[in-house]
């Protein structure tokens, strides 16, 4: 016992979904949002295999990928919207709806499960008062599960936005959340 919870430093993850809060957000994109989407598309569309870079940029800059954005991307790339939606929902780091200011992802893979990810998750649910997939009423946190985040050496681990926390015990949760 006694190993302090570890703040793991590493490069930015594919997503930086922190730009928007859920509170008061309709699930529709505004004309301003769409202008940004079109700007992102025109910036990246000439890449080889441009779909993922475009979706990543929309996710990073806007916090989530709206239905209208997916239709716009599909038209620009000569794809069907069903295909863009299929790709978007395949990756857990893409969001199809607005999320809290900070997204907490609890690793649900086996190496985290064994040393107690379940108890950590329960502590998070209790502290936040939400279930998995939900956002706190103040729009601050969204709680999600993720598959392996690649830090099995410090299991159990969670990510809050781009920041990884490892070697967690339920008792660590309060102090971590207090940082946000």
């Amino acid at each position, binding site marked *: 016992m006694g190993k302090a919870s570890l703040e793991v430093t590493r490069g930015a993850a594919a997503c930086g979904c922190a730009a928007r809060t859920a509170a008061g957000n309709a699930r529709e994109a505004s004309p301003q949002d769409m202008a940004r989407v079109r700007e992102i598309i025109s910036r990246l569309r000439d890449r080889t295999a441009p779909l993922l870079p475009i979706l990543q940029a929309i996710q990073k800059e806007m916090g989530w990928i709206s239905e209208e954005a997916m239709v716009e991307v599909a038209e620009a790339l000569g*794809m069907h919207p069903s295909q863009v939606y299929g790709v978007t929902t395949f990756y857990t780091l893409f969001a199809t709806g607005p999320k809290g200011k900070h997204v907490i992802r609890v690793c649900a893979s086996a190496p985290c499960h064994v040393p107690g990810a379940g108890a950590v998750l329960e502590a998070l649910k209790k502290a936040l008062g939400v279930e998995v997939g939900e956002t706190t009423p103040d729009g601050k946190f969204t709680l999600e599960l993720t598959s392996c985040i690649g830090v099995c050496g410090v299991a159990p681990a969670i990510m809050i936005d781009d920041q990884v926390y490892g070697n967690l015990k339920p008792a660590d949760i309060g102090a971590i959340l207090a940082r946000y």
Partner: protein
Amino acid sequence: MDLVNVTIDGQKLSVPKGFTILEAARLAGIDIPTLCHHPDQEVKAVCRVCVVEVEGSRTLQAACAYPVAEGMVVRTNTPLVRQTRRMVVELMLARHPADCPSCTRNLHCELQTLAERLGIREVRFGREEKGLPLDDSNPAIVRDPNRCILCRRCVEACHKVQGVGILYPVHRGADAIVAPAFEKPLAELPCVYCGQCINACPVGAIYEVDHTERVWKAIHDPSKHVLVQTAPATRVSLGEEMGLGVGAIVTGKMVAALRRLGFDRVFDTNFTADLTIMEEGHELIHRLTHGGVLPMLTSCSPGWIKFLEHYYPEFIPNVSTCKSPQQMFGAVAKTYYAEKMGWKPEDVYVVSIMPCTAKKFEAQRPEMDDSGVQDVDAVLTVRELGRMIREAGLDVTALPEEDYDDPLGRSTGAAAIFGATGGVMEAALRTAYEVVTGKPLPKLDFEEVRGLQGIKEATVAMDGTQVKVAVAHSLGHARRLLEAVKSGQAQYHFIEIMCCPGGCIGGGGQPVPTTNEARQRRIDAIYQVDRNLPLRKSHENPAIQELYREFLGQPLGEKSHHLLHTHYTARPRYRKA
């Protein structure tokens, strides 16, 4: 042909290079079980039912995808192979509803057949229902994602064949499902309801909206005069549904069966197919001689019409204003025939037997009420008619061949061929040529527009005018043809478009399986029907001549305009900001 030598279950054989193990084994008389495999589609190798042992290979291999190589030794029937196949199917069954008797595909289900073939008597895994909602949002097609086994055959039909791309795999892992964009109901999306996904589905995850109950109810309602019409393509496909073999011609038996089911009159959509030719042929001549919008496009196929409205609204002025034969029948039956019989239109109930699911949508379009009430009340696919015939206990093999009732049951060979790609074009040319030139056609058969080639072209000389025509079937080919017209790359006077591959004989309401082989045999049968009829030109149909004399006046006349012609509406595609 290059051959390679392989050994399959101890049998040595030479097979063409490039064959898969699955194909090679079939040459050796071994039918390796499959599920995601479809004879007309690309290899998917996602279901893993066809696994075999390949000597020297660390793991089992999917026979549908693995190419043979010189000296390869394959074992298809070892304890490991049998155990693995069972496990794979048991895992599918564990996430599949166990209520086979209430499924539309009961006894026609590839998963059920496979489970039986592999001797699966119990599923060792806990059942895990998906609990997903049914999509019954629209008048034509129901999706039950709980029954879906993720084979992706519907996805290929929707994307590659039809090019509308509505269905696609979404989410991942255990949450993966095949669903429309944004998991919206089909009614909110530019789905054309062609039903090609139904024909591709190995299980009961997609099926037609059932009309059999409302038809039984009407039949047993003494206040209703229940009239039935049978589409051209149904007479060469109902036989498959009744176990009479692919391409069997069952016109007379179908009439006898319908009479025994209790319909008051058994009429023929072929009658109004002849009527369509009269109207559409004259419309073409009028457009050609009065500077009308060209090329003129056909309007019989409701899947194509919905595709037009969503994806090519700029071509709406090109599309013939003629209603489809199904809708012309409803309008004529509830006016001309009802008046003849002294019936009120509201007491007449019109049922269509169709090779099509989009016809269910067409029948309920709000503008299809020119008789004063909805012109067509119920639409049964060939599969639904098969169910009613089985429920009634009719032995089709023992039924006599009977004739349609007069006068809406009289038709020509030109009407019969509506059921095959190129048929409407050929029928229209047979009539237009004789109307324009006043001379009999030297040769009735326009071979150039027949067959399964995607886009077909022909040029016909009519009194010095070279009339250029084209034919496309399946929406993928239709899109290619329309793009060529749009860019000015191709110029035509008249284009036939059918939504489904092969035309209506390959429709989404036809017996399952509808493969390309079945399509070809149904096409052969339909031209046989044409050859066997004494009259083969629509304008020679005496019942049609009488209809014009007694009721309509002339083609494109006032009454025709009111009852037989329609208009189209641009429809949205996807929500835009």
